[in-house]
């Protein structure tokens, strides 16, 4: 009995060890990816703030009106949902997708039409399988996200908004709070609201060339692009952070398992030796008698 058991235990230790190597490697990769994504998320801040300030300034102009700020009764909503491309990141994907689904159901109960732009393979899979109107699908774009990639999506959204395909746009993604916590959050991005709250009132109204409306509309794609880019980068950093801590606890669990199994293995080995000794000495006793 002891020998077979020892073999099994040895095999399990080996398999747990190789799993641990994988989780450890994934943890390290996630850590470095997270760091890079965080740097990008920080770098985009001044860009976006300047842009938003300029938009606030324009909105103060007395003659200013724009379809992008008009307050209308919302009937058709586009939800941009950002999740990860891969699993093994703890509750990262589930949390954000659940929040998005709840929000979509809530909007539908209020009688609004909801269409979904899914960014990230997990978001695409989740909403395609269920009863949602998924109008756009983007997989595997988060890691190599460039400004141009975000710009393509942003220009598309802006054009469709202007055509009246939808009258509000919400963004749902996971924000990076700290390396240990990432929270799903939602944000209404179109029509543009709360513009004046940021504006500074120091200057006289500048000259807008050719007109405040046109300058503002020209900024809209950049505004959306900045938001999307930072949301995608933020979400990517969160995904890596979630994966890092998931893999860290997986490695810890593997360590614990290896410890328990080693104990079991040593006990079995000791038991076998003891048994062999007993057998030898009892055999000698038998011979002597």
């Amino acid at each position, binding site marked *: 009995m002891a020998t077979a058991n020892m073999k099994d235990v040895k095999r399990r230790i080996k398999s747990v060890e190789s799993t641990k190597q994988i989780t450890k490697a994934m943890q390290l990769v996630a850590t470095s990816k997270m760091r890079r994504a965080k740097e990008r998320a920080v770098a985009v801040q001044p860009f976006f703030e300047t842009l938003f300030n300029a938009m606030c300034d324009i909105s103060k102009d007395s003659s200013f009106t724009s379809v992008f700020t008009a307050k209308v009764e919302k009937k058709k909503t586009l939800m941009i949902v950002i999740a990860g491309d891969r699993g093994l990141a703890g509750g990262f994907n589930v949390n954000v997708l659940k929040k998005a689904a709840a929000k979509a159901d809530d909007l539908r109960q209020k009688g609004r039409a909801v269409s979904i732009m899914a960014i990230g393979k997990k978001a695409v899979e989740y909403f395609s399988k269920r009863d949602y109107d998924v109008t756009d699908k983007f997989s595997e774009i988060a890691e190599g996200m460039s400004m141009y990639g975000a710009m393509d999506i942003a220009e598309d959204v802006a054009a469709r908004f202007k055509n009246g395909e939808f009258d509000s746009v919400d963004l749902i993604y996971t924000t990076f709070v700290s390396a240990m916590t990432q929270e799903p959050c939602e944000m209404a991005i179109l029509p543009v609201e709360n513009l004046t709250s940021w504006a500074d009132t120091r200057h006289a109204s500048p000259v807008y*060339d050719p007109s405040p409306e046109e300058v503002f509309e020209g900024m809209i794609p950049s505004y959306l692009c900045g938001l999307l880019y930072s949301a995608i980068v933020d979400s990517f950093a969160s995904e890596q952070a979630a994966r890092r801590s998931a893999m860290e606890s997986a490695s810890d669990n593997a360590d614990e398992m290896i410890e328990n199994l080693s104990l079991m293995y040593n006990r079995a080995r000791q038991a076998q030796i003891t048994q062999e000794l007993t057998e030898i000495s009892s055999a000698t006793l038998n011979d002597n008698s």
Partner: protein
Amino acid sequence: MTPFNLKIITPEKTFFNGTTTQLIAKTTTGNVGILHGHVPYVANLVSSPMKIEVQGTLKEAALSGGFIKVAPEEVIIVTNAIEWADEIDVARAERSRQNAEERMKRHESQKEFDRAEKKLKRALNRLMVASKK
């Protein structure tokens, strides 16, 4: 000429933060030259070569869209991308020019075509700026 403060911000970094005496950029309505004491002014910029005075000479950079805001104390340019002539990756710009041209030839949809056209403009702008350095 009196210098003024200029800040050029891209999503990746602050590209330029210092003083200059002259700036020539192309807006949606045409070229504008900015000197010290310009009236407060805001306009959208198109992908084009932009000239900035640096240490007495006009240095050229490839600008990819954005906007300019002239305020009394400083001029701010916000753009998606900008490179000095000697920073441009010519091979990459050439590749993206070919790619854009192919996509335009295929003409799959108007949306696709418009995107390719913009990409082509950016690539040509970069190539043009790079060739003049």
